[in-house]
């Protein structure tokens, strides 16, 4: 198709504002899929993973080509690029948006503008996208159509008439969205017919038969089955196995032309070779420069995954390998821990990414896991002048060798009803946050901006915010900077032995508070043993706090006669099975969930 008749756009929205439902209606309206395709329980076609449908969040980007006859009688090729719906995947979102000229901004008419609405809008504007404003769910009784329309119009500086009111669920006014895309989203820019190929990889997935499928947007040049390919960042070379478009299934085409969106099956064996943000060029006639904006995936949150049964170590490794084929952001390294034996230290883009990986391992790969409390990457400047990055607290060297410790800070935006300003302030104050400013959005709501150490966020910030504001507040965040702070490692000693998996790094001012809380939680989690078990929190060998798990004195069935034998035996068998699942720390038996004690640190 000539580029004048192409429109590349994405839909952006706050979670649950109806992005996927709107996408479904567009696919239906353009005849790309029939409504029958939606039967059989798969409500949202673009969210293909079970987890995506369940969490209502798109994890992988996807791209669908639609053809639609507009009011002018001409047929247009509309490429809808769906973006990941969570801030952990901010980089992936930015690359998907870079593949577009326009974005449909969906706002829930019952909720109004939320934190991610703004974050996504700003991202779209940064990418010079034309924004098509839509308010959704106007069929609901609680919809405040006029108010939200005015809010959105004011935010974008457009007349209220340009805000399209739809009900994606009922299909009301959805055609107006497509017409607005044709009218307002510019076609891809004209390029020189001889310009060398530059195809932006905005996502990929691994296919057993065709290798890595790179999702591409051609900025210039053409690609067909005869084009030898060069990945400009990774320098990997390959021949296309297939070139095609998503319509919505993978459909081979002869070639992809400038401005078009589609896929190239690369035959690569790992998504690492076709990274999001890389530029594919023609190896015979390579472009001089790759497209701007590439960033290597950088894990921010780290946690250790151990198999519940040590025998499952190899299975876990295989599962991680398979998962990594599709997830370039996931990193893992073998590690050992005294109690948990052999496992992996894994890096994730954020907490949500971690949860997704964990759940996929458990569900799709049937792994029974022990997951340690999440931590962050610390940058160390050693007295020798050397710079070191550590991914787990127990790796922190002797403080005497360290000149400074830097930890990642995030910039966090919270939109909350004014009633909860005090509650939000209090939550962030306890998280060592710097309060930056409050902006008034309307009479009822404000946006508050904080800088917060990521280490304080990974535990329970989101849950706390939701519960303190009865679910009304929304939050968005992005990495800000590494900052120097007075940080110390708190070791937890069980029966005088430091336990690597339980060490935490905290601000010196909080060492006592966190340390004593942590050992109290540990005390509750560790069953009484046949001897007294001291649990201590220590910084640099100096004990800050100590509690004792008293020795078990009484564990016996008092009454055991003929009629009791089966029942009492089953009780003992259950006790024995429970004991088997526990971990040994020296001669202390520890249940697996004791390793999550840190996650419950802020409960009091």
């Amino acid at each position, binding site marked *: 198709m000539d580029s004048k008749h192409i429109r590349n756009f994405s839909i952006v929205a706050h979670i649950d504002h109806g992005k996927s439902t709107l996408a479904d209606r567009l696919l239906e309206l353009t005849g790309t899929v029939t409504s029958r395709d939606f039967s059989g329980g798969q409500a949202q076609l673009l969210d293909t993973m079970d987890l995506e449908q369940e969490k209502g969040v798109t994890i992988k980007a996807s791209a669908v080509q639609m053809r639609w006859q507009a009011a002018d009688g001409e047929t247009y090729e509309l490429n809808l690029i769906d973006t990941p719906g969570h801030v952990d995947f901010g980089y992936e979102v930015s690359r998907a948006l870079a593949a577009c000229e326009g974005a449909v901004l969906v706002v829930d008419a019952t909720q109004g503008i939320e934190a991610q609405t703004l974050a996504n809008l700003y991202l779209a504007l940064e990418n010079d996208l034309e924004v098509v404003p839509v308010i959704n769910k106007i069929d609901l009784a609680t919809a405040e159509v006029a108010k939200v329309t005015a809010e959105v119009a004011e935010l974008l500086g457009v007349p209220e008439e340009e805000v399209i009111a739809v009900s994606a669920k009922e299909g009301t006014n959805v055609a107006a969205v497509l017409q607005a895309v044709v009218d307002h989203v510019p076609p891809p820019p004209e390029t020189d017919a001889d310009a060398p190929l530059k195809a932006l990889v905005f996502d990929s997935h691994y296919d057993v038969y065709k290798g890595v499928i790179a999702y591409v947007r051609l900025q210039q040049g053409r690609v067909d089955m005869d084009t030898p390919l060069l990945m400009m960042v990774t320098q990997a070379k390959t021949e296309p196995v297939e070139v095609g478009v998503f319509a919505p299934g993978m459909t081979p085409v002869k070639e992809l032309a400038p401005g078009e969106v589609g896929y190239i099956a690369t035959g690569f064996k790992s998504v690492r070779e076709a990274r999001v943000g890389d530029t594919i060029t023609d190896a015979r006639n390579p472009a001089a420069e790759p497209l701007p904006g590439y960033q290597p995936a950088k894990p921010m949150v780290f946690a250790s995954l151990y198999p519940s049964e040590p025998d499952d170590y190899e299975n876990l490794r295989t599962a991680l390998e398979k998962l990594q084929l599709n997830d370039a952001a996931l990193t893992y390294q073998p590690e050992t821990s005294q109690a948990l034996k052999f496992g992996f230290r894994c890096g994730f883009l954020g907490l949500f990414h971690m949860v997704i990986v964990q759940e996929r391992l458990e569900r799709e790969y049937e792994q029974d896991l022990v997951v340690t409390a999440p931590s962050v990457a610390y940058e160390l400047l050693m007295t020798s002048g050397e710079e070191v990055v550590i991914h787990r607290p127990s790796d922190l060297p002797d403080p005497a060798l360290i000149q400074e410790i830097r930890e990642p800070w995030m910039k966090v935006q919270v939109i909350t009803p004014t009633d909860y300003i005090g509650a939000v302030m209090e939550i962030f104050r306890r998280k060592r946050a710097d309060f930056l400013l409050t902006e008034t959005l309307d009479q009822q709501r404000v946006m508050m901006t904080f800088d917060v150490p990521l280490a304080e966020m990974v535990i329970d910030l989101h849950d706390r915010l939701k519960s303190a504001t009865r679910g009304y507040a929304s939050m968005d965040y992005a990495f800000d900077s590494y900052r120097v702070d007075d940080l110390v490692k708190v070791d937890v000693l069980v029966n005088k032995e430091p336990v690597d998996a339980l060490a935490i790094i905290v601000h010196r001012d909080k060492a006592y508070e966190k340390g004593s809380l942590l050992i109290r939680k540990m005390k509750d989690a560790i069953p009484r043993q046949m001897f007294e078990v001291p649990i201590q929190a220590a910084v640099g060998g100096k004990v800050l706090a100590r509690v004792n798990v*008293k020795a*078990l004195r*009484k*564990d016996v*069935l*008092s009454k055991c006669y003929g*009629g009791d*034998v089966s029942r009492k*035996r089953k009780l003992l068998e259950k*006790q024995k099975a429970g004991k088997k699942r526990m971990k040994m720390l020296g001669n202390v038996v520890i249940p697996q969930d004791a390793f999550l004690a840190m996650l419950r640190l802020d409960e009091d």
Partner: protein
Amino acid sequence: MRRAAETALQARATTLYFGGGTPALLAPADVARLIAAARRWLALTPDAEITLEANPGPLDASRLAALRQAGVNRLSLGVQSAHPAELAVLGRGHSWEDVARAARQARAGGWDNLSLDLIFGLPGQTLAQWRHTLDAVLALEPEHLSLYGLTLEPGTPLAQAVASGAHPAPDPDLAADMYLAASEDLHNAGFWQYEISNWARGAHSALEVWALPPAGETERIGPVSRHNLAYWRNTAWLGVGAGSHSWWGGSRWHNVCHPRDYIAALAAERSPIAESEVISTALERGETMMMGLRLAEGVNAARFEVRFGVALAATYAEALNRWQAAGLLVWDGARARLHRRGRLLGNQVFGDFLPD
């Protein structure tokens, strides 16, 4: 009973036990009929131990004398406590006066084998109160005592009362102290502990708490419960009546619980069995250990080998060594028995003898 006899053709009963619920409400004449039936169908031996469980409240002198006349020779009274407040916590309908009177009347009615049950570790119970109950009970000069640590069974009114805060939660460490105090007090009073929760007035005096019985045979101690001894030695028994359990020929089963269903089943010549479990040899060995280690005599290695055709040492080498090393078990090659210190931690030990 005839049905039970058909199941167990070679049965030759040496003990008979009327238990579960309130068998003392049976008319003494009916008790006599049941004993006669047991003699006829189950070859109950002339010198059999015949025990009847009873609550102290509803007993009176004439009933006690009549039951004794009917052939019952051992009386087990559910005393529980000498303190009104503790009896109230347990929801018992009798008083300490009922207990003292019943014991007196039993003696007058010719009973010479009296066993009393007590419960310790009650919500709000102090160590001093517990020792007072022990003193009061010893003054009745029973032949036998059973001391049970309270277990809060989920769903019971007492467990609910504790959960709701109406009673303080029992302290397991205090319960351990009470157990050890009782163990000392009863030893000093001439009782011999022969099982984790059971004491008999010793014909000989034991040198120490939890001593090995004379010649390693519990019966030599004195008036032990011979019936319960059969359970702990994991020998066969037959249950008759609604809800009763049996262990015979490699199977364990129990009858339907409701008397109405039980009667209906028998009237229709149907089996009253509600549930049956086949016990594998490996399991039977494990249960033999689990039950036998409850006894001060422990598990006799020679008998084990005769019964199962394998050596005890070889079968349980790892568990024996582990718990011997931990100081909770004594294994001398002839018998395995809990160490004195192991009495309160039996569950830690027993599980290792059960098959995986």
